[in-house]
């Protein structure tokens, strides 16, 4: 283990500040664990559909649309996507949801300020990929005229993830924007984005947040 590592001066640093315009800390563990659970459930559902696409299970559960689910999961669109990804598209979906889980569990409760790159990566995985997931499900319904209950559930979970992740992404974007507007220093913004500490970054972080 790293014996020379500095111990965190928790008493000097308030990790639970609340950034404007929220009434709560968007990086708090309570919210992030909920995101991890939602993404984990979506990953499990996608993994189950992936097992069907791989031929490891014979049928796919769907009490509402019945056989339509199997038709969606074995459709031409699905085969085309699987050829692009080199794995079944449901497995790729599972990996995207697992990415949400991994990225939401990394970082402290003030990561919106201390690790902007992490929030940017998390935002890129959750928001655009979530929208792609919803679009694909809508496309399958519109083009094929068939629906898949589990696909619809994962699409709804994707939308829920976007709603849950939005506040943290917004806080980081606002923090970086304020830093840019107040300093106009490209190098400083770049370094802050990658987690470098500075007086101006500290001041702006405190300026846009309050203690609980």
């Amino acid at each position, binding site marked *: 283990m790293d014996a020379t590592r500095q111990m965190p001066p928790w008493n000097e640093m308030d990790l639970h500040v609340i950034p404007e315009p929220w009434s709560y800390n968007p990086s708090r563990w309570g919210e992030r664990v909920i995101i991890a659970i939602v993404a984990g459930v979506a990953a499990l559902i996608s993994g189950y559909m992936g097992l069907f696409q791989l031929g490891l299970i014979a049928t796919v559960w769907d009490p509402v649309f019945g056989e339509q689910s199997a038709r969606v999961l074995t459709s031409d669109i699905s085969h085309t996507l699987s050829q692009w990804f080199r794995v079944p598209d449901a497995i790729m979906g599972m990996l995207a949801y697992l990415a949400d889980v991994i990225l939401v569990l*990394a970082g402290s409760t003030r990561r919106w300020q201390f690790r902007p790159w992490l929030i940017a990566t998390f935002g890129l995985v959750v928001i655009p990929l979530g929208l792609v997931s919803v679009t694909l499900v809508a496309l399958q319904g519109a083009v094929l005229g068939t629906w898949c209950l589990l696909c619809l559930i994962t699409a709804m979970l994707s939308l829920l993830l976007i709603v849950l992740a939005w506040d943290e992404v917004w806080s980081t974007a606002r923090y970086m924007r304020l830093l840019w507007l107040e300093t106009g220093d490209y190098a400083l913004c770049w370094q802050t984005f990658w987690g470098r*500490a500075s007086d101006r970054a500290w001041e702006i972080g405190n300026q846009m947040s309050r203690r609980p």
Partner: protein
Amino acid sequence: MWARVMEVVLACWLVLSQFIFRYDGEDVFLRTNDLACAAIVVACSFLSFWRPLRYAHLAILPVALWLLGYVFLQTQSAPPHMNYMVVGMLWMLFALVPNYASEPPQAWLRYVKNMPEKS
């Protein structure tokens, strides 16, 4: 350091997967590739525990990209290739996670610790 542990777990999975997916007896390349990639990843993960080499986990990124690139060069998607895709993607994600990821970055810890001296 949970991400480092997960990288090692995935490396173990990759080594075991040749028995699970029952590679062809003559497929020496895949077996060697599995062992080489797993060895590099385990080495990088463990080296990350040593402060001077704390960023060693980033060296896992090229290994992950190699697995993904190899899969995209194949014309067919056999089970070992799909396995490479999954392991490569997960390695790439875990490699991005910093050591002691639940704490603020060292730069910020040092900054706050030295704050009284500044003022």
